[in-house]
């Protein structure tokens, strides 16, 4: 064994590199390659408008994927994000249509998300059921609630003032992108710099050891599901603001895109591993693929194929490069 630890005290540059991990760098390279390919194939791909478009199209998935990342790091999974979003959307929307102030309607929608996450979390952490099964069950339950509540009909005619909140732009960027960027920043700080972040990584990395070390296991898991529910509800608000209507079937298969973004970004479904930066890059990769292929007039069948291959390629590269760095 060699002693090479003499200079651990002050290395700011190395420290920065350390924070921007090898894995995230890999995801970034993947994104750059994909951008370069589309840039070469699609005229006008690099136009500012299109790049902003990509960000906007990625923002909803990114929002969900951030919550999903935290849940996955804790060793769980949240399949119920789509129906959670739908339930939050129809309740906010019906309140808005009934003339309830925007702030209250949005707060109620977000509270619904928190409540959905709370139920998931309690069933996982206190009752001890498996996360996959719990959220598979609530996936149907929440969807059913949204359908029953609306009788299966969309809630139409949201007030223009509400729509303006989410459709405006700031510094030339759409509001949705700004909101999700802010969420991502908070998520990054939470994961890297708070005890809760350390607890998430510890609970997912080795629950038994975390327990012996005094980590509040149940509280940590429940918080992760509640954040996931909250972010699903936030995504729902962004979406109904953009569409001006809320459908109870909104958010179908969102969970799969969110899991894909997290996995491409380096989250391990075994728990204990994941990155906010990676997840954002993963969501942008998926958004870029969709945007680029649509611009190339590729049929949606092939778009699906390309998305599938990207996920598999990311996992293969992960497998091959693991154990280094």
């Amino acid at each position, binding site marked *: 064994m060699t002693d090479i*630890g003499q200079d651990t005290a002050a290395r700011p540059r190395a420290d920065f590199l350390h924070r921007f991990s090898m894995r995230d760098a890999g995801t970034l390279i993947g994104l750059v390659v994909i951008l370069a390919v589309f840039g070469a194939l699609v005229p006008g791909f690099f136009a500012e408008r299109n790049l902003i478009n990509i960000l906007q199209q990625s923002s909803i998935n990114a929002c969900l994927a951030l919550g999903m990342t935290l849940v996955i790091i804790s060793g769980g999974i949240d399949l119920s994000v789509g129906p959670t979003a739908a339930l939050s959307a129809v309740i906010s929307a019906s309140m808005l249509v009934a003339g309830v102030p925007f702030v209250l309607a949005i707060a109620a929608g977000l509270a619904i998300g928190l409540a959905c996450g709370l139920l998931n979390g309690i069933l996982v952490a206190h009752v001890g059921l498996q996360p996959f099964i719990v959220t598979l069950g609530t996936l149907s339950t929440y969807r059913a609630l949204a359908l029953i509540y609306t009788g299966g009909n969309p809630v139409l005619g949201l007030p223009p003032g509400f729509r303006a909140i989410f459709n405006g732009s700031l510094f030339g960027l759409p509001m949705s992108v700004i909101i999700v960027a802010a969420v991502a920043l908070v998520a990054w700080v939470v994961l890297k710099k*708070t005890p809760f972040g*350390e607890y998430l990584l510890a609970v997912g990395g080795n629950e038994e050891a*975390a327990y012996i*070390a005094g980590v509040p296991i149940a509280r940590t898991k429940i918080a992760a599901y509640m954040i996931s529910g909250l972010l699903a509800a936030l995504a729902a608000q962004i979406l109904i603001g953009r569409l001006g209507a809320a459908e109870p079937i909104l958010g179908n298969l969102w969970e799969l895109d969110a899991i894909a973004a997290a996995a491409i970004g380096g989250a391990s479904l075994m728990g204990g591993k994941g990155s906010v930066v990676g997840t954002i890059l993963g969501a942008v990769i998926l958004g870029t693929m969709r945007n680029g292929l649509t611009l190339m007039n590729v049929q949606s069948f092939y778009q699906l194929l390309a998305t599938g291959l990207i996920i598999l390629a990311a996992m293969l590269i992960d497998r091959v490069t693991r154990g280094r760095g």
Partner: protein
Amino acid sequence: MPVPRLQFESISKVFPAVRALNDVSFSVGAGEIHGLLGENGAGKSTLLRILSGVYRPTAGSVLIDGRPVTLNNPVAARAAGVAMIHQELQQVPRLSVAQNMFLGHPLTRGGVFVARREQERRAASALAAIDPSIDPAAPLGSLKVAQRQIVEIARALLDRARIVAMDEPTSSLTPSEFERLAQVIAGLARDGVAVVYVSHKLDEVFGICQRATIMRDGVVVDSVDLAKVSEKAVVAMMVGRELAQEQHRSHASGDVRLSVRGLASAAKVRDVSFGLHRGEVLGIAGLVGSGRTELLRLLAGADRASAGTIEIDGKSVKLSSPREAIAAGIGLVPEERKREGIVPLRSISSNMALASMSVFAPRGVIDHTKLKQVASEKMKRVNLRPFLLDRPIRLFSGGNQQKAIIGRWLAAGTRILLFDEPTRGIDVGAKAEIYHLIEELAAEGHSVVVVSSELPEVIRLADRVLVMRDGAVAAELDRASLSEQAIAAHAIPQTKMQAGQTHAGRSAGPQARQ
């Protein structure tokens, strides 16, 4: 001299940046049980992996019965007559004994259907020679660890192995189970099999092996005839220096820090009472299943007590979660480091800070400068090597992982440290360091409880020893009355005394879980 059954000839293995084996040569005769000794990282595992076809040597060759063999993969190694019995058994608990013995190459009828009966018949005939009490149709999971080892050996017999390599086969066996296994191994040797036996337990190696090869840092130090060397000399060869025989020194003071009265749990513990003083090291000895680990888990808040009171510094405390126990100043260094101690992917710093996160984040955000400073201080204190605080803990040796866990409790300001088998799976050199550390902690005024199956360890460390039997305290021994015989006499139930006496001097039985 006859041609040796197994011969390693100038084996070298170079990994990127590491030379794991350098010019390793020794031989094992047919019918010989050959010990392979060395500290963690000495190259034993690498050599076994070469023998079992997992790695290819960079240079050198393996000869079986005088002929060089190419062991490119595990299948080739098996075909060449090598059977490997791993420390962590590679078996499927839900499948039957016979299915496990034919795992990967089942007998079939017409190449389609598994010939279950025929498998069970052959499995039974292989088992008959060594342990007829094992039912080939029983699910493997229903067997004890010792019996599972025997199933692995029977599997080697089925494969007509000429060489059997065993990696730490007894790490979780009781003395009588070890005795049984030793007989089976001796039987293998009588049939002309060459056995390579890797173990940390020198007394076992001296007990069953004729010769041994000692490795250090990837080279062979020597191959010795065990009848002609002392254990001490072998240890010196393994470590590369003489380990000083330390004298016990007590630091206990008059103040009672922890007072336990009538403690009981639904699981194992019955009416346990004792006091623990400031600076005292209290040893807890006893057989497997005597309730030692269960007692520690109650004190650490990991399990709930069903009766009894616990006082710390005269104040009654309730310990219904590890969190509460930690707040009360109690920390557990668990037996199974991988399962209960470390978060493998996280750094040394993170693992250390896990129990005291709130201290490092007074305003909600972790002060990484402070964390790094404390980590650096505590890890220097426990002598972490290599001193790389940001490196994932899984990349460190068992001894250094253990040091980081001890550092965790130092950082959390823990005053009562509970050690469950503090040196399990830790090599000889690091063992001495852990002992020193425990003594220093006591000298600084920490109160320490050490549960151990290794009687020399208990005797080396403890100021006082509680002997547990069937969940209760059977005896309390002070230094004056402390001896391996005295502990064994109280640990073993009277009816089993006769049978147990032969092992009294060796060990009170390592502890097996489940």
